[in-house]
């Protein structure tokens, strides 16, 4: 494995690991705040138990999120010094504000986790809310930094020099809004479906039904709304990408030829050499419509992009399809849930209905990982779209593959440990919370 590929793989691995914990870190505090609120209002002990059971699980995720995030802030320099040297001062604004948000989150978390019975109950509740709010704000901020890589702004690039740096403008670059919106919604649907799925499984197994039903309802309420909004926000993202990064859009859609009445290709195996997609289903004109709101207008294909500026087509295309497929499935389930809620209450306890949620447990996280693959692989070969190539940013140190193996080992072990601990916590629910 050469150093460049190793560095990219290590970055992808670390980010792919961290994103799971950050989604949970953003969303679980919100869920906990809701059940905590219900407890304070109704005095129903079950809600208190749910809040405490969740907060124990979340503590594990928080610690893992915090350490993997710490890794990342060093890895940016360890792996991409050529990039950070120039980018640091320009896209640093969101990172410095993020630092502030994390700090507040960590303080609030201390109060929340260790503050049961110590403080005024509403103060204690508010610290939990603050954990969620600062988590979401920090998520939005990092994504703004990533959006800047897709749409560099806030400086003038003259003869290899980065002049007239304006960090505020860099933070509010063209891409940040669509990305931050899509990501925040994604965090809710991914975490929501995962949590709902775990509780659905317990209901399915007829264990602690009151406890798990109440927990399920809180999680799915957020997840279902988010899953319905997700494709709408995805449409904004796609329109945005088409404007900023036509190469990325073309790779996502495996669109080799620029054309009018552009079809949308669903599925299929892109053949880069022959420049066509085999076995795909074509819906005529749909891509033109999705990108430009009319069935006719031309969409740029890979043929207008110089060969050495094209991203890997197959990975980007598959990842995009996977995201959209899981997204559509989650939207479908969400709609069924609302139908059940309003018209067919009896479904809620049917086995097939619970099974849907059990199957959908990982869908949101699959979509998140796939979506990030689209964004990041679709940006290649650029680390900073149109300005700096990833290959020019990588560290001069040889032997990065060993560091990659090390990280792979660590993240693999940690994932196993987290799964192990979580399953033990779920196993203990009857003993701890079911008297």
């Amino acid at each position, binding site marked *: 494995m050469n150093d460049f590929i190793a560095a990219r793989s290590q970055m992808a691995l670390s980010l792919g690991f961290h994103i799971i914990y950050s989604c949970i870190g953003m969303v679980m505090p919100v869920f906990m705040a809701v059940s905590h609120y219900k407890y304070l209002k109704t005095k129903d002990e079950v809600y208190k138990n749910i809040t405490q059971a969740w907060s124990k699980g979340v503590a594990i995720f928080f610690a893992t999120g915090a350490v993997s995030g*710490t890794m990342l802030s060093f890895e940016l320099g360890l792996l991409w010094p050529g990039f950070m*040297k120039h980018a640091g001062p320009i896209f640093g604004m969101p990172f410095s504000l993020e630092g502030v948000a994390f700090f507040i989150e960590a303080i609030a978390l*201390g109060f929340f986790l260790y503050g049961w019975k110590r403080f005024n109950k509403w103060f204690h509740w508010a610290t939990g809310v603050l954990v969620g709010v600062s988590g979401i704000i920090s998520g939005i901020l990092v994504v703004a930094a990533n959006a800047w890589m897709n749409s560099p702004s806030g400086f003038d690039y003259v003869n290899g020099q980065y002049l007239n740096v304006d960090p505020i403008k860099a933070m509010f670059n063209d891409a940040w809004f669509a990305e931050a919106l899509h990501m925040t919604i994604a965090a809710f649907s991914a975490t929501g479906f995962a949590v709902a799925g775990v509780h659905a499984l317990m209901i399915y197994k007829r264990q602690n039904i009151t406890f798990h039903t109440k927990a399920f309802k809180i999680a799915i309420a957020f997840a279902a709304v988010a899953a319905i909004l997700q494709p709408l926000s995805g449409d904004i993202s796609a329109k945005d990408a088409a404007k900023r990064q036509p190469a990325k859009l073309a790779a996502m859609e495996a669109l080799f030829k620029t054309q009018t009445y552009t079809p949308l290709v669903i599925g299929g195996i892109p053949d880069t050499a022959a420049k066509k997609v085999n076995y795909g289903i074509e819906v005529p004109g749909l891509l033109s419509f999705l990108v430009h709101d009319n069935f006719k207008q031309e969409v740029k294909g890979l043929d207008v992009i110089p060969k050495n500026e094209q991203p890997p087509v197959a990975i980007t295309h598959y990842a995009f399809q996977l995201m959209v497929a899981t997204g559509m499935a989650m939207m479908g389930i969400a709609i069924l849930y609302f139908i059940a809620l309003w018209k067919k209450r009896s479904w809620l306890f049917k086995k097939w209905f619970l099974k849907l949620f059990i199957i959908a447990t990982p869908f949101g996280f699959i979509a998140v990982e796939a979506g990030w693959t689209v964004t990041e692989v679709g940006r290649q070969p650029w680390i900073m779209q149109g300005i700096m190539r990833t290959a020019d940013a990588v560290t001069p140190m040889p032997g990065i593959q060993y560091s990659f193996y090390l990280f792979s080992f660590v993240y693999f072990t940690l994932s196993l440990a987290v799964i192990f601990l979580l399953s033990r916590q779920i196993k203990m629910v009857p003993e701890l919370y079911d008297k």
Partner: protein
Amino acid sequence: MLTVVILFLCFAILLYFLLGGADFGAGIIELFTSDRNKNRTRRTSYQAIGPIWEANHMWLIIAVVILFVGFPNIYTQLSISLHIPILIMLMGIIARGTAFSFRNYDAIKGERTQNLYNHIFVYSSFITPLFLGIVAGSAISGQINVQATTFMDAYVYDWFNLFSIAVGLFTVALCGFLAAIYLIGESIAEKDVKRFILKAKVLNILAFVCGGLVFLAAEIENVHLARWIFGNPISLTAVILASISLVLLWITVNKGKRFIARLFAAFQVSMILLSVGYRHYPNFVLIKGGANLSLLTDHATDKTITTLGTALLLGSLLILPSLFYLYYSFKDRNREED
């Protein structure tokens, strides 16, 4: 604004050293505690650092962010030359943070798993500050070689030298010392207090020995440490103040004034950092051959520094009061609960 940013950087490094250091120290003490007392030590330190460890570690993040936003040349140079020790330190951080929370949040407290977490926790508590110290020592050792042509010169000998390693050991000893002083204040039983006082004494002596090692290594490696520290009035004053506060520290400990003892310990360590730091300010990374990286010249454009400084000032308005309240709220936790 540059001054504000530099002050924040120094402040963040100092606080990480004091708070994060005490936190590492708790693990180091556990490593050197007899099996009989391990559980008690563990409980005391969990109660003491549980609520605040995440916040303590944020100072590291703040320092790193200030470096990469405000001083990108420094951040990238350190990342390149000290890749390996930073990597090891990161492994320590990840192992330690996760083991600490796993052992407290594992729903089933089985003996084998708890033992495993404990082992990981104590060894990583030792490794992390060791390599943190090595990174810091290397930055000022003047061994960072930007013209190297071989792998060893470029990526290994920058930090694999007697001086850096001695600084690493010294850091470990100081962390243990800080933690012992901190835990004296957190213990209730007379027996525990005595135990931690003894630990503090041993670690104090160890810190002296390691400090001596640092000087010795400096002489061997041609680092002009003695000249830096004794050659200018401010550093000299700082060293003298550090020594005085050490004496006062032991007097207050013996009188049972736990809170004041902590202040003296913090003050003493701050003075040690000041005495070394002052002499090469504004140079932050000393490079072989002399092209040092300085906080005053190797910074980002003024506009970036201004926004960074503003963000830090506004942020601290939010952070500092709540942080104080956090420490205040949990400071007497142990004594209440027993």
